[in-house]
Structure formats: structure tokens, C-alpha cells
């Protein structure tokens, strides 16, 4: 299908984009890579009066590695995948990115766009929440940072104000004492994950953070004490306990029960994989 008519505004700077958002607020849909928004427009699931194109705001395409790794909102998923800084400092994201869409959609799709869209099964919001990252939002009123945990409110609903623009994501650097793993199950590669699990294991502290995507409306992150070594029974018990604490939705793709079962299996796999990586240091 073809989109309904909309006014097209192409901003050349962050300031221009913010002035459009300040003036028109909720009437605006911001287009980053457009790999979700384009489909929603074409199917007329959304019919915004104004589409604000931020593809020419080149300053939003930067990746900077400092105390955290900052990725501008317009960093394309393909560019993040080939970024040495991300591979080195945010390994979990590098592990998750090949699961995001397809080769062709990663060429265009962005990190910020995926976070703004907030699909419950999306990998990028899941990794950001698991690592305890932050979303940077700007408006003509202020600049603020929101923890991913607070940002994702419900399926496709975020804490972004109507006049705000996501300008960057801040990813905590993964310490050399942290091992990570990412697993998901989808009907086919590139499909939306039914369940995705991200794991960050801090070897010294013996703590594990496990993030679950696709289960409920938003990414759910749980922290547990790591089992000592790969004790199959202990890992299995933790995975079962964890998966009992989560919210699950049922839809055409899978029932809540099936999602719980997948969450248990994938949590076990993710824990085992990260413990095995840590063993190389033992």
C-alpha cells in the first residue's frame, strides 16, 4: 500500500529538528532509518500529519568511546556491526546485531530508531536495558538522560516526550571481567524473536544480569548470583526460577506458556555460554 499524504520536513541540524518538534509535537513522526516506520506508513497503521526526516543530521551518526560508548541516534545497524569500538567495548551489542532484521534492513535501520520504536521483541532495546544503558533525549527545553529500564513503558510506548528527540544512546563499557552471551529463537532468521535472552556475567563478582526480550511488553532484566562452575542442575534451577518471575504475553505466534519454556531454555544456554567463556580465565 501507499502512505497517506503527509508533510515532509528534512532537518539539517539537531536545532532544526527540535524546533519542528517544539512546534508540532505529537503530530510529528521522526524518521530515522525508516525500517519500521516506513512499513507502518505504507500500511497506514500510522498516518502522521508530519514526517520529520533526521537522516541528514550527520552529527547523529557518530560513535564515541569514552567513559561509556556513545552512539548517535542515526548510527546504522550495519555500521555498528562493523565498528571496532562496539566490538571491543560493547560486545553484547555486537553479538545481538546479526539477529536484527536482515542484511538489507541493517544497511538502513538505526540503533536510535529501534529504541524509539520499542518493539517488545527488538534486540537493541534488550541489550541497552540489560547493560544498564541510557537514552539521551533533547528538546528546546532541556537535555536529559533516561535509564533504559525506565524508558520502555509498554509495547511501542516509551518515555519520550512529544517534543523530544532521541539524540544518542549511552552504552556502559563492558569490563574485561565480564563475559556476555546472546541467544534468541525466531521462526526464521531475521524474523521477530519469540524470545531473546542477553546475559552479562561478571566473573569476579559472581553476578549475572539476564535480560529477556519478546516475553512481555518490555525488556525484563533480572540479576542473580552466578552458579559456581557449570553445574547443569544448578543452572537449570536458576533458569527455571528466573523464568517464573517474568511477565509473558500470548499472541498469534506463541502462547505465554511456550514463551516461558523458551525463556528457560535460552537463559540456560546463555548462562552456560558465558560461564564457558569465563572458564578460559580460570
Amino acid at each position, binding site marked *: 500500500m501507499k502512505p*497517506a*499524504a*503527509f508533510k515532509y520536513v*528534512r532537518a539539517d541540524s539537531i536545532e532544526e529538528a527540535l524546533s519542528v518538534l517544539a512546534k508540532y509535537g505529537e503530530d510529528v513522526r521522526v524518521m530515522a532509518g525508516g525500517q519500521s516506520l*516506513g512499513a507502518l506508513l505504507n500500511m497506514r497503521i500510522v498516518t502522521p500529519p508530519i514526517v520529520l526526516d533526521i537522516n541528514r543530521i550527520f552529527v547523529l551518526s557518530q560513535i564515541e568511546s569514552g567513559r561509556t560508548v556513545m552512539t548517535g541516534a542515526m548510527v546504522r545497524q550495519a555500521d555498528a556491526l*562493523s565498528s571496532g569500538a562496539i566490538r571491543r567495548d560493547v560486545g553484547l551489542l555486537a553479538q545481538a546485531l546479526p539477529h536484527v532484521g*536482515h542484511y*538489507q*534492513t541493517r544497511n538502513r535501520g538505526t540503533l536510535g530508531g529501534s529504541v524509539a520504536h520499542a518493539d517488545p521483541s527488538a534486540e537493541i532495546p534488550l541489550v541497552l536495558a540489560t547493560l544498564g544503558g541510557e537514552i539521551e533525549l533533547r528538546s528546546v527545553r532541556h537535555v536529559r538522560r533516561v535509564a533504559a529500564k525506565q524508558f520502555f513503558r509498554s509495547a511501542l510506548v516509551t518515555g519520550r516526550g512529544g517534543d523530544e528527540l532521541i539524540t544518542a544512546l549511552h552504552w556502559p563499557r563492558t569490563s574485561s571481567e565480564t563475559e556476555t552471551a546472546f541467544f534468541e529463537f525466531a521462526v526464521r532468521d531475521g524474523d521477530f524473536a519469540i524470545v531473546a535472552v542477553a546475559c552479562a556475567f561478571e566473573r569476579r563478582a559472581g553476578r549475572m544480569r539476564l535480560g529477556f526480550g519478546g516475553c512481555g511488553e518490555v525488556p525484563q532484566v533480572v540479576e542473580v548470583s552466578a552458579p559456581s562452575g557449570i553445574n547443569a542442575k544448578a543452572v537449570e534451577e536458576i533458569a527455571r526460577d528466573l523464568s517464573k518471575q517474568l511477565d509473558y504475553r500470548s499472541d498469534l505466534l506463541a502462547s505465554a506458556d511456550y514463551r516461558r519454556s523458551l525463556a528457560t531454555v535460552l537463559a540456560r544456554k546463555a548462562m552456560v555460554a558465558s560461564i564457558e567463556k569465563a572458564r578460559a580465565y580460570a
Partner: protein
Amino acid sequence: MLEVEAGARTTVKFTLNGKAVKAEAEARMQLADFLRHVFKQYGTHVGCEHGICGACTVLVDGRAVRSCLIFAAQIEGATVTTVEGLAEDNGELNDLQMAFRTHHALQCGFCTPGILASATQFLNEHADASEHDIRDMLSGHICRCTGYTGIIEAISATAQNRKSRGQKNTSPEKDND
């Protein structure tokens, strides 16, 4: 800042298959429709119109992207290559297209222009593509005739031929930063 009112048109200048072109487009016009209906380049096929099937994939600045998920107004200044622009200058099929013929990589041909666009970028980036890599890239395309076997053989053979000819077709995976 560019503003195009709903229903109004804007002039879009870009490079299409090596030629500088320009035409007017309404804000909501998809690149796929712009190429087909305005430039009469019917080689770009339109399947699902929501980014799933891959039939409309073209190269924008060397990258394979869905032309149904980009609006014409967004390609101002860009370089677009469609299947019409892949052949050699003398009009002969290029090596990838020849391989598709040799390996029976198409039957009805509806998905082929999109797959050729993806494979063109993919081969530039992956000189040593494994079958798994090729399959992964192809997961972004739907072909209902071939079962993909011929397509995988054609892409794999092209990679091998380019390598054995020592043709410089690789820009090694580069860091962005």
C-alpha cells in the same frame, strides 16, 4: 531545512545508473514507485511494500536497501543503482548476472533484481563468503521458485571466480571509527 507540504511536490536530483537525473515527487512517493512510474525503470519489482519480501531492493550509495521503505525525497544527491545499471558498459551481462544464468538461479525472475542488488554489495564486502554467510544475506529475500540452491551456487561461484582471477573486489571489513 526542506519542507514539502502534504500533496505538494519537490524536485529530487540524484544519480541513476550513472546518469544525473531529476524529477518531481510528492513527499509520500516511495523510491520504488519513483523509479518505476517516473523513470520507467521497471526492473525494480514491487512485492510486499513493507520491507519483507526484498523484491524492490536497490543500491543507494552502494548499499542494498528496500526502495519501498525510502521516500523519493530522501535520495536527493544520492547515487542509485538498479538492475538496469548492473550490466557491463557494452551491454553484456556482468559476471554475477552470467552466473545467475549458468546456475539457473531464477525461474520467474520476480525476486532477481533485488537479489542481484544485495549480492553486488555483499560480494564487495565478503570475498570469502561461506554458504552460511550467503544464506544469511539471502534471508532478506523471498524466492518462491528456486528453493535458493541455484542462487547460492551463483553467488558462491562469482566469489570464487573473482578470487581466482585475482580481481580486486574486496574492500576488507573496515572499522567505522
